[in-house]
């Protein structure tokens, strides 16, 4: 009689026998794996039991996979709970910065603090004076937004021409007409409003060529303005349709099992991706600045080359 049957009679598993389920799932270390393989070669009773274990393994997986998934209510409830927690959405490590700043202030002597405060106050007064002077010279027109012009009709063309050199506010802000084009024309990628200091990923730069053109060419924007106005109703409709499309362009991405949370978070940040849902172990991602299916394809191609990405497909 085999060792296996003896042990069943004794109602206690033998060492190797007890390891069979983990051998089936591949969760044994190499040493135990070799021991089990050796025993399986020699003991037909053990092989029979192993066949039964494989059935159990398959059916347990099948049973669990058919249990479904929690509804979105669970995630909503979680997010609501997180927002009502002390600290709200702030990450757990956020308090470090104020701590450092407070420590810096505490390290300064009272006299140094007093001088610093005086210097700061003086700088504020100077800044206010400069801004006041600029306002007096240029009037309020420099601060009117393109949207305002559109509302009041095609008046004040002078206000739409590039402002005089001494109007730093108008000069340094995004060209007003470029902004108007973004609103009226087809592609309003959110990346347009992102600070220039945030570098876009290579994929994103490829995906949004029209954006960089409109941002860098204020003169052209001024020229195209009347065309945009003449076609205003249809252009506005197109703009709204595009906004809807942008929301609908979603990728489904799965990551390698060994991918670490920090790696995934870094990757999502570099692609400016937001998690909008999940299906099984896959994440549904929306990308900032991505408006069309071709944009999505560019990003999907880039994602598939990432080491930690197992699959990346367009969500239906």
């Amino acid at each position, binding site marked *: 009689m085999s060792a296996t049957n003896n042990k069943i009679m004794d109602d206690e*598993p033998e060492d190797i026998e007890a390891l069979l389920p983990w051998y089936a799932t591949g969760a044994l270390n190499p040493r135990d794996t070799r021991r089990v393989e050796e025993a399986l070669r020699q003991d037909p009773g053990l092989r029979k039991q192993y066949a039964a274990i494989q059935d159990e393994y398959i059916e*347990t997986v099948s*049973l669990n996979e058919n249990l479904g998934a929690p509804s979105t209510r669970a995630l909503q409830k*979680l997010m609501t709970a997180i927002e009502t927690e002390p600290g709200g959405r702030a990450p757990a490590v956020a308090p470090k910065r104020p701590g450092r700043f407070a420590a810096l202030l505490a390290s300064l002597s009272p006299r140094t603090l007093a001088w610093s405060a005086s210097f700061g106050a003086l700088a504020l007064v100077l800044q206010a004076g400069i801004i006041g002077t600029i306002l007096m010279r240029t009037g309020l027109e420099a601060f009117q937004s393109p949207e305002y012009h559109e509302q009041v009709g095609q008046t004040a063309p002078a206000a739409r021409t590039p402002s005089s050199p001494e109007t730093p506010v108008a000069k340094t802000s995004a060209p007003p007409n470029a902004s108007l084009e973004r609103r009226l024309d087809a592609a309003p990628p959110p990346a347009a409003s992102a600070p220039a200091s945030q570098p876009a990923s290579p994929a994103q730069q490829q995906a949004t060529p029209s954006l960089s053109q409109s941002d860098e060419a204020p003169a052209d924007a001024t020229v195209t303005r009347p065309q945009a106005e003449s076609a205003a109703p249809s252009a506005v409709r197109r703009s709204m349709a595009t906004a809807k499309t942008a929301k609908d362009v979603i990728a489904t991405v799965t990551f390698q099992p060994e991918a670490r*949370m920090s790696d995934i978070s870094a990757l999502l940040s570099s692609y400016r991706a937001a998690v909008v849902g999940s299906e099984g*172990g896959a994440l549904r991602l929306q990308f900032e600045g991505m408006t069309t299916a071709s944009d999505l394809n560019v990003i999907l191609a880039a994602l598939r080359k990432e080491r930690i990405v197992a699959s990346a497909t367009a969500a239906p």
Partner: protein
Amino acid sequence: MAMQVLYGRHHVRVFRFGLRLVRNEQLAEDLISEVFLDVWRQAGKFEGRSAVSTWLLGIMRFKALSALRRRSEAELDDETAMAIVDGADDPEVTVQKKNTSDALRACLTALSAEHREIIDLVYYHEKSVEEVAGIVGIPENTVKTRLFYARKKLAALLQAAGIERGWP
């Protein structure tokens, strides 16, 4: 963002583990929110010595047992509640099942929570002996014997349903 990623990657499996323990979808959904809220609160305590999924399953197990205890209102202690075989789908019912797969699944469902738990952790969540010991809070040898007894109980249920598998 990190919480959404974590949730997206693990919530389904952790939910299913909880659902198999508490057998109530609504309750399992409530528990999944509680599990990840705990994670959000205690992120700093995770030392990385085990896989994140092992950590999450451990939290879910604790929450599920607490919920079961609340439901039974001290009539049963955890150990007793976990050991009760579910009569909802007993072997007589499984006799009606046409094939071995259906019968096996019915018997897997009919096991006690203690046995369901260990079978799920090993077969579905593919946890090692050490990981199961960490999640359930029992010695590694007890993990092995508990799974063995769970499998024997499963075989007995199948036998009662008229299905012979050649083991034991």
